[in-house]
């Protein structure tokens, strides 16, 4: 792979602070996505935080790291898989609910618990994946011209 045209100078302070702060940002993003049905936030907000942490990682640690190897194939696979999962889950719930079919429905659980709310948790995760990849790939495309 060719090196991108824009490759900034890296300072020691930036690298160390990035090592310290990026895991916390990503844990917070995952918390926001997983608690979307319990507290303010959800897939869109958490996905944006996750995408921002990936952009920060890309800016600080540069080309030779794992995250920047989010290749074209992987982007397409993750996005299509998330969209298909979203459509399948919600299509199932819409069809069975709309036609009043007496088939298995996902249990709603106790309101307030993490595993509750039916399909809302997996849908939040799918939306979070889509939004984070979109934010990151947009930044990378406009900044460097490649994925």
């Amino acid at each position: 792979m060719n090196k991108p045209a824009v490759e900034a100078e890296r300072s020691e302070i930036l690298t160390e602070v990035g090592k310290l702060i990026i895991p916390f940002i990503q844990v917070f993003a995952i918390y926001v996505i997983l608690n979307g049905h319990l507290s303010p936030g959800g897939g869109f907000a958490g996905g944006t935080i996750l995408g921002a942490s990936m952009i920060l990682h890309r800016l600080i640690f540069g080309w030779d790291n794992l995250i920047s190897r989010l290749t074209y194939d992987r982007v397409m696979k993750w996005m299509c898989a998330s969209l298909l999962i979203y459509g399948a889950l919600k299509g199932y719930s819409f069809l069975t609910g709309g036609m009043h079919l007496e088939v298995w429905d996902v249990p709603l659980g106790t309101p307030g618990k993490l595993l509750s709310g039916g399909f809302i948790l997996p849908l939040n995760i799918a939306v979070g994946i889509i939004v984070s990849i979109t934010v990151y790939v947009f930044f990378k495309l406009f900044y460097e011209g490649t994925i």
Partner: protein
Amino acid sequence: MRKVFSVVLALALIVILLFGVADLPTFGNAENPSNNEVSYRYLEEGVEETGAVNVVAGIILDYRAFDTFGEATVLFTALITVIAVLRRDEDE
């Protein structure tokens, strides 16, 4: 000829849209169709029906989940378009 045609077409569209705007209900009127029972239903029975404590998540991912599916698809389409326009080939 084309310019005249486009001006006429634009004027016709403007007139049609202005007729539509003239039929809108007055802003803030209590009798407006948007002040219906849907919001009360969401607030009173949302937790029971969706199982989500956060009412916003319950609305956008359960009652109105098809709309959110459209939003995700818009993001996907925008990403594909930008990739198709801006992506450089590896061997260049």
